[in-house]
């Protein structure tokens, strides 16, 4: 590791500003995030949302890509099982990512770094709470370069 990189690593440790990518389904969780907004519930700016039609649109590829590109945490939020706008989408999300999350843990990635949450359009409160908790646990873990693409430098 070059000297310059090491410096960067140290400085980033001092002011760890995690990035959390949140995939939110259009019908429930994105609306839940909107409700958190209209209710002025605070959560950290480290959370950045990407809208998808349904949680079942989220591919494990996207999750790994986010980690590669410097995300410290990834969260997929969808309707509660049974309430999917597309009837059954989140049931598939649940199976896929139950296995995928286990696999990530199996190769040594902390559970805290990848989460799935069921957040309805009415749960603005839950949205804010979940995001706050997520950031807390990521902060506790501290900076990590697991899965990160060393060639990609994130500009804060």
């Amino acid at each position, binding site marked *: 590791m070059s000297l310059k990189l090491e410096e960067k690593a140290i400085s980033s440790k001092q002011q760890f500003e995690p990035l959390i990518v949140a995939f939110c389904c259009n019908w429930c969780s994105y609306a839940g995030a909107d409700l958190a907004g209209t209710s002025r519930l605070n959560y950290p700016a480290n959370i950045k949302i990407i809208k998808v039609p349904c949680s079942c649109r989220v591919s*494990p*590829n996207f999750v*790994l*890509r986010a*980690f*590669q590109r410097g995300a410290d945490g990834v969260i997929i939020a969808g309707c509660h*099982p*049974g309430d999917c706008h597309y009837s*059954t989408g989140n*049931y*598939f999300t*649940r*199976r*896929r*990512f*139950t*296995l*995928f*999350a*286990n*696999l*990530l*843990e*199996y*190769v*040594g*990635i*902390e559970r805290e770094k990848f*989460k*799935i*949450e*069921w957040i309805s359009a009415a749960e603005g409160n839950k949205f804010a709470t979940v995001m706050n908790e997520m950031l807390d646990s990521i902060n506790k873990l501290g900076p990590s370069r*697991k*899965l*990160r*693409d*060393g*060639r990609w430098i994130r500009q804060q």
Partner: protein
Amino acid sequence: MDKTTVRMQQIALQTLANGEVDVILGWKKGDEWYDSYPVVINDINETAELIWDAFCVNNLSKYLITELKKNLRIGVFLKGCDSLAFNQLVIDNRIDSERVVIFGLPCPGMIDPQKVKHAGLNKGLLKVERTGDKIVFITKEGVKEYIGRSFDYDKCLNCRCPNPVVSKYMLSDAVTRTDEEQYFPDVTEIEKMPLEARYDYWTKQFSKCIKCYACRNICPLCSCETCVFDNIAAGVSSKADADCEQQFFHIIRAYHVAGRCVDCGECSRVCPVGIPLEKLNRKIIKDINQLYGDYTADTDIAKSPPLGTYKVDDFDPFDGSKQGGKK
């Protein structure tokens, strides 16, 4: 000559001659004692060269994909694990089972040449014969006999399915296994490691990868016309030699065979740098069995694959109350 080999040559001759099949997929013996290689033959004169021994490890079912495109009727020799792969290929619509005649080969286990070499038995070795658990090493000097499975491939020691689950002609009696089945000991061992150690273990393993794709090419289920890693539009193809790319490839490779992997262990066998790939696959198999009921990919082609179905009350690790389904 081995009884099964005789039967093999007979059936090949018979089915080619009576027109039941146009070509036969089988193995022939190469120059070395450990060399039994896959062949496609359509000449009845060649049937006498077909061979069945403890080195016919190659799974012939994947060859069917290309061969069937020639609109031929094919006779193929399949071991237990090969037959599972065959079924999965049928589920995936990759082959037309109507045009395939299966010759089933109950398999006592295949011998790992590396293990023979490590035991120093390869010197002057001419031939290895196996009947059940009796292994006979024929050398220039004489004959040595061993009983047991110490020369078997690791993957064969974990074999759940020595007998073909589908076949038109069965070439020998079914193999019975009496040894106590252990429940994914290899996976449990890794699961028990501390998280950081696990990360280091896998990163070290993955970093050995030279992206030769042998694992993908041998895998009977990695049968895509164009692999996603070769599909620029998918945005995941990066051939760069970076840790994260190896991780990406191996995690996604394992995920892509989730619920379809037949645990034949070929990926690990062919890996030139020795990455224990099957331990990723087997982790997923273990989880699927535990969470969604015993899914053996699969003996039953009518069953829906675990990732192609769901239950309303599936286990839900993402729900605070740990309950699945509607309340």
